[in-house]
């Protein structure tokens, strides 16, 4: 792949988006290829949006929410997690590798984890590109 991969990251307002903010405050560095879309909760992300992102040309999609048990809306992230199997199946139907989708949990005080997740995902889709 000669161009940098593009990753869409759905971040819940309360933990993961806040962690991304804090990554900025802490001046951590990460690859510039992630585009964050703020959602209220990880459980708000419809599976179709994941498919849509990939079909429109994204190389990877992340859903990031609060740690299990810490969702601002009781258990929205568990619902997101339950849905993620369905998403993987959907992706298969559409011919996308399942590695292109990832779901991550982090607290608002874990900017390092955010950076790690984003960097991991970038590596993952880069590998896919090399393999393919």
């Amino acid at each position, binding site marked *: 792949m000669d161009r940098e991969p*593009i990753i869409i990251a759905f971040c819940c307002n*309360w933990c993961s*988006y806040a962690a991304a903010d804090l990554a900025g405050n802490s001046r951590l560095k990460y690859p510039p290829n992630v585009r964050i879309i703020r959602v209220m909760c990880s*459980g*708000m992300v419809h599976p179709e949006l994941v498919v849509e992102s990939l079909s429109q040309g994204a190389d990877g999609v992340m859903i990031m929410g609060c740690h299990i048990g810490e969702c601002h809306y009781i258990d929205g992230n568990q*619902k997101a997690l339950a849905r993620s199997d369905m998403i993987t199946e959907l992706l298969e139907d559409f011919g996308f590798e399942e590695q292109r989708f990832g779901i991550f949990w982090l607290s608002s005080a874990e900017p390092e984890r955010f950076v790690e997740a984003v960097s991991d995902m970038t590596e993952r889709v880069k590998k896919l590109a090399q393999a393919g």
Partner: protein
Amino acid sequence: MLRDSMNVGAVLIVGGGVTGMQAALDLAESGYYVYLVEKSGAIGGAMAQLDKTFPTNDCSMCILAPKMVECGRHANIEILTLSDVTDISGTAGNFQVSINQRPRYVDPEKCIACGVCTDNCPQLVDSDYDAKTGKRKSIYVKYAQAVPLKYQIDPHSCIRLNKPGKCGICEEVCVANAIRFDDAAKKRKLAVGAIILAPGYEAFDPTAAGVWGYGRLPNVITSLQLERYLSATGPTAGRLLRPSDNKPVRKIAFLQCVGSRDENLCGNGYCSSVCCMYAIKEAVIARQHVPGLSAAIYYMDMRTHGKDFDTYMEKAKTESGVRFIRCRVHGVEPYSRNGDLRLHYINEEGRQVEELFDMVVLSVGLQISTHIRELAEIAGIQLSASSFASTSDFAPVTSSKEGIFACGAFSGPKGIPQCVVEGSAAAAAVAGQLGLRCEETPPLPEYPEERNTSEEEARIGVFICHCGSNISAVVDVADVEEYASGLPGVVHVERNLFSCSQETQDILVDAIRQKQLNRVVIAACTPRTHEPLFRETLKSSGINEYLLEMANIRNHNSWVHDDTSQATLKAKDLVRMAVAKVATAESLRPEAVPITQRGLVIGGGIAGMTAALNLANQGYDVDLVEKSDRLGGNALNLKHTYSGVHVPMQVAKLIDKVSVHDRIQLHIETEVSKAKGFVGNFKSTLKTPGRKNRTIEHGVAIMATGGQIFRPTEYGYKQIRCVVTSIEFERLHELKEKHVKQGKSFVFIQCVGSREKGRMYCSKVCCTHSVQSAIELKREDPGRNVYILYRDMRTYGEREYLFKKAREMGVVFINYELHGKPKVTEVDRQINVDVWDHVLHRPVRIKADMVVLATAIVANAEIDKLAQLYRIPLDENGFYQEAHAKLRPVDFTTEGLFTAGLAQYPKPVDESIAQALAASARATTLLSKKEVYLDGIKAVVNEHKCDGCALCVDVCPYHAIELIEIDRDKDDQPVKLVRINSAQCKGCGMCQGTCPVRGVDVAGFTMEQLSHQIKAALEI
């Protein structure tokens, strides 16, 4: 309560810094009319001069500006700048205050802050705002984001004002005709019910002391000056250059305790509390400015006792490579004519060392200025020996005179969070005394009528923020501006130095009106902190507040990427995504729901009781829940506060007041077992053994669930008989137990369970506590040997006097490091404590009769359960996580919930009480209103698409969705649809993520909007 007085609803606040602003906002929101008197030309105080704030490294101005703007436009706040209090008469509830308002020489009504006058003014003088590192003109504005944003003439340096007939250029060039050379002082008389003094502090001036070469050696600067050098708005625009030759700084030293903890050189015996942390912060930030910079901090004790401070220091050591050297440097010498500086010191191994530096920074302390002492005299209140306002630990914001309150750095050196806490606390104390109820509150500010934009084509305005240079240093903002103007629907683009400044708000309002904008994109920082501000601006410009989208090109871009071309590209993407999303934004109407005017306080310790009592005194009913069988909490184990207040007596008084107050409903031996609801409308179920569960309704809740003592497993605790914790010791001492009574040798070991892996935090109270006990032991019998083994003595603020006294009495202090902890052993009933002595550089063995372990304070076990019940976050050490470390220290991110006391972080009595009052003030800003407006971000059903499958009904966490029958079809089968109960809906979007037919959307985050964002992100 002084309800009958005429002036009951008006309050005077002296000092427009962060403390005064917080007090003003809390009171104004609770319905009081506030006069905010500021001696300089603009509010903002010391915080406005800082570059970054610890421990989050937030940009200081960025977090302060929204608060300043809020003060500036609050209908209940009248800001009087350039004003001094000249006289106060009358009594509590009925004060008459005389104000002298010095002339500005610029008509604020006319000044449009264009800055042409400054550009043309020929007179240059040192800038106080830049701590004399830079220059300003004689006609100037205090700083770019000043509130009010009005120019002023400095009468001392203005040519015209000193030589009539000369100069006068500003008058000639001012297009607004705003210059008034004949302006004169105005006298005002104010009638108020209460007075809050929050005049702040001044930085210690090291010139006179001589030894550090300050004022003589140009490369010796103060920490405040460094702050300005690091700031994007400072004299070097954020580049760290040596004043003597503009050479980039490669090696920098910080000298701690300049003007603190030193009665000989500066006369300030106290510790200034904040310098250790700001020095670390400056070292870390300086390294970000100059990669590879070598930074060293020379200190006596590192006092990083606040929340997250120790972790911050550890990171500075391990990640930023800041060196920490424990020693006192006694002088700075010039090394060569090129400006290098030499430090001499004795290192920890006892060797003489000399080191060269490019720049030496003096970490100057905080002190009370003559001006403030005069103010205290006018107010007739008492000051402490070090000239701070005298308050008592159980009434930490109450001055010696009834009706007058003191808070912030004026009542003792302290950091920003504690200042904010005290600002709120003073508001609570005033309200507790004046007791204004919501029936009396004036109407809310009026907004212009909202323009109906629903039929209009999208006309989008994009505003791109430089954020000083936080964004523009990395992102090519001009390029982004040009790019944005070509995006569909965009009709207006402009750049602002600070999008959040008052000035920009006015610009925004004008642009929206003149260009008939109906959608706004702010490309700046994060919506999590700044969206409320811009929504407010949209409202005041007459369009719906939800027609707004923020593109986070700072936190998610310029701060995390270094490469300009990539960051600029990304900024364009983010702006494009925001434009795409906002294009289909719709006007939303926040729903008003009534507030239950009743508070719930969980925890019956001093924090909980104080909060409950204050709310009750303001006239609100309160349920106070305590899980044990008695009130008092941890305070029941304490004897004296640091300043000597007898705790049992004060606690008994507090318990009495709480028990008899007819507005306080006590629930002893009770726990909360269930909770639901939202701001203004909570329902909590209380469980008391042997009683039926009952559910109470409340509008707000304060979590004051306390902490507990860590049970140590080291130093032979529970194995060796006379090894006890400090609380156990206190009890034994009180009971005159024989080992204590007859003991001749006592060893205190500090930081037991604190500041190490797993609990990387300071428990804050233990140093002072041990010192107090040591003094007591010595007082009883000066022949006793008392040792305190410590890592850093953290007797911050005026607690330092106790430390000094202990040393004078002969208490021996021995420093140990984490890797060389003391060893406690017992041989033949003799306890031995072995420790490495850093002064003698050899191991010492102390024979002890008793070993006292200063154990950590940890969070209560039940905190997890409550956090779950009310959906509030905990920090990594298990304490409550407040909404913002600096500016929202007692709020939770969930509206309507607040915290106080040990449950948030270990702290002494006075700070717990201040926090409790603060929580009460914050709660009152809600309780004083009849209704709250719920966020308009809520689920909406698309009736054309919904087929009544009801999948969403099951996933809704709040049971806000129901299935209803709306019709019968031709086969007489019911036609069903879902309906949202919007008061219950919290906008989480679980329904939206589940619906198979896109039949339900959360307004502001609709499927359509998210799709647009995806598309925009990928169209390259």
